[in-house]
């Protein structure tokens, strides 16, 4: 026996009133996209529920992918069984054994008889199915209050449906229901996690990366492309904007005292990010800052850096401890990439000392010598935009070799 479909339950969508339809449509679309690698799988939407029809596809592989789709509260693999009592009994037994592979634990049966024409009543059915399971297993017992496994049997007109396992989804909202944001993607541990958490709230994501050749090398850039590709697992294809930052960074290095270099550099990045965001119709900037984590992320620093923009800046990690960020990074598969030891533009000119409490007035004073508009405009104009596709593609020239 094999599960033949999966019933998907929505997170939060029930709260969304008039938007609900739109949210459901998006979720349906996102699930379809996430399961594209399984050619036999069909995703159906009906009566406010989404069904994934497996058609022989391995349920566990599909479950693994579903767990990565935002907007799903939980889901349950289920069996469609002919309306025949013996067949229903056996299917329930199989489902219990599948959910409790050691054959130890507790269960309960709850029958919902929508089809009133079915000969037995719900209570009778509970008893009948429950005893069949008990008779055919050794260490499984009934617990109606707090069972390890609840066998839900729905008797409908056309068939009986049996659900047993409930697997928790990622929660959140379907990607694409909340507008677009611009993620500042550095290549470190934090920013990909910030992007992931932003996606969880339903936004569409584009990313911006500051590249300073020859001070940062091609591998650092490759790493960022690879990180963006991991994020496409959760948010679909995305644009990555590579900003040529060498000229601005050189100028800053020459004109600004060491202690304020980081602060001014950050302000430049923010100015550029804002313009790239506007150009691409993004409504907010997302970054991986966590309060007090490093010198540039003290409250004083944020106050001074933030002065240059009134664009919304979302900081999903603002109160998260580093260890918790690392845990998420591992879970979503960005950690191993993030720790590859390539320098990014934040570290190359890192002065021996950075001001942890930079002042706005001083910063503005130091920036006076710089032609801010020129460097910002120049960088924005020379942005290179690459399309990161959700499907893991090999480099074209390499593909032929394998």
């Amino acid at each position, binding site marked *: 026996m094999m599960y033949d479909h999966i019933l998907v339950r929505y997170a939060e969508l029930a709260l969304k009133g008039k938007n609900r339809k739109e949210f459901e449509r998006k979720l349906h679309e996102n699930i379809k996209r996430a399961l594209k690698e399984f050619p036999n799988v069909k995703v159906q939407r009906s009566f406010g529920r989404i069904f994934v029809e497996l058609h022989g596809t391995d349920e566990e592989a599909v479950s693994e992918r579903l767990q990565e789709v935002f907007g799903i509260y939980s889901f349950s693999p289920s069996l469609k069984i002919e309306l025949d009592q013996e067949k229903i009994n056996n299917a329930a037994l199989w489902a219990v054994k599948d959910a409790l592979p050691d054959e130890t634990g507790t269960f309960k049966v709850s029958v919902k008889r929508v089809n009133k024409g079915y000969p037995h009543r719900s209570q009778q059915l509970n008893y009948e199915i429950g005893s069949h399971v008990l008779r055919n297993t050794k260490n499984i017992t009934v617990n109606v209050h707090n069972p390890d496994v609840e066998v839900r049997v729905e008797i409908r007109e056309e068939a009986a449906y049996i659900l047993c396992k409930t697997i928790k989804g990622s929660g959140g909202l379907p990607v694409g229901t909340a507008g677009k944001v611009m993620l500042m993607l550095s290549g470190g541990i934090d920013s990909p996690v910030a992007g992931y958490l932003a996606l969880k709230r339903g936004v569409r994501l584009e990313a911006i990366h500051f590249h300073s050749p020859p001070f940062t090398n*091609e*591998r650092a850039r490759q790493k960022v492309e690879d990180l963006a590709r991991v994020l496409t697992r959760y948010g679909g294809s995305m644009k990555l904007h590579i900003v040529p930052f060498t000229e601005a960074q050189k100028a800053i290095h020459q004109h600004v005292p060491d202690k304020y270099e980081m602060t001014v550099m950050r302000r430049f990045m923010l100015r550029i990010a804002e313009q790239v965001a506007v150009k691409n119709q993004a409504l907010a900037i997302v970054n991986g800052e966590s309060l007090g984590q490093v010198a540039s992320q003290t409250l004083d620093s944020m106050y001074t850096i933030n002065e240059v923009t009134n664009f919304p800046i979302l900081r999903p990690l603002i109160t998260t401890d580093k260890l918790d960020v690392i845990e998420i990074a591992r879970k979503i598969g960005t950690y191993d990439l993030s720790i590859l030891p390539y320098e990014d533009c934040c570290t190359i000119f890192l002065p021996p000392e950075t001001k942890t409490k930079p002042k706005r007035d001083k910063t503005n004073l130091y920036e006076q010598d710089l032609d801010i508009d020129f460097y910002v405009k120049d960088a924005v104009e020379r942005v290179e935009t690459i399309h990161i596709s959700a499907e893991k593609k*090999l*480099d074209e020239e*390499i593909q032929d*070799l394998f």
Partner: protein
Amino acid sequence: MIYFDNSATTKPYKEAIDTYTKVAIDYFGNPSSLHPLGKAAERLLTQGREVTAKLLHVSPNEILFTSGGTEGNNLAIKGTANLHKKRGKHLITSNIEHASTLETFHQLEKEGFKVTYIEADNNGRITKDQVASALTEETILVSLIHVNNEVGSIQPIYEIGQLLSRYPKLLFHVDHVQGVGKVPLQFHEAKIDLCSMSAHKFHGLKGSGILFVREAVRLTPLLTGGSQERGVRAGTENVPGAAAMVKALRLVLERSKELSKINKINKFIESECKKIPGVVINSPKERAPHILNLSVVGVKPEVMVQALGEKGIYVSTKSACSSKQTDPSKVLLAMGCDEETAASAIRLSFTYDNTMEEAEKFVEEFNSIVKMLKKVVEK
């Protein structure tokens, strides 16, 4: 030419050689070099690892590129034994392993490890229960060959893996060198921790191999130096060899749809040769589709190989790695063959390019050679 010695080595696919050549010329940079040429080579290696992982249904960081089956076996066994010797010094293997496993265990015995050699039955098989009863508190590694290289017997790896997964303190290594593309094995499903493979057994080039190392499994390196291959195997990577191996692996797995064809050839030769007086089939009935071991009792196998070779038919005496020793096959003796039969065994091994016509031709030539030699031997 009829090449029936595919367990010794296979003819490299032309596509694999093309890949080798192109990579050796265009991607000659050292993957550890920082310049663009180095980056290109590194990229190639990374993507090759990803493709390999996908083909084998594992994750890329579980793929270690090695120099071949012998290195894979040595690294898995010694790397585990040396790392975990404080945990226990007992190791388990079988008496029908390839020389690169057997000799490694002999060496470890000299270093103070205790090794249990599980004895195979007449069909060249060991059972889960035998493994279970060999386990002790001290056991840190079980290493078994999946498909035996001389007779083609297949071990119940899935069952044994399930059993061993209940003992988290020991590791399970499988020598899968003969199985790739011929006898499928899903490493994760079979609860395998370490698994060795070799490129030239599946139409790649010599000098390349794969060691699957399950995530979270650590090894003491045999070769120390740079941090290549996650620090487990130092030394500049053999980029063209690895790339060619990936190509060969993809092609051989695509062709594994034609497995029944190899099986047919194997069964045909078996049934035809059985009819010849003096010929004994040594392979068990249940075996890999590409290996057939038989003896012409009383005729030295070297003579048989030589005579067939003159007709352009290539087969071998037992395993290529121990064929220069003239004593009877250890594997066949372990399976309970008598000395004379074990001393006259030849092995045929097939691949997807072999045809039924070749099989028929072989039977014809074999028949006449056996008759001729028997006459000489028996006078």
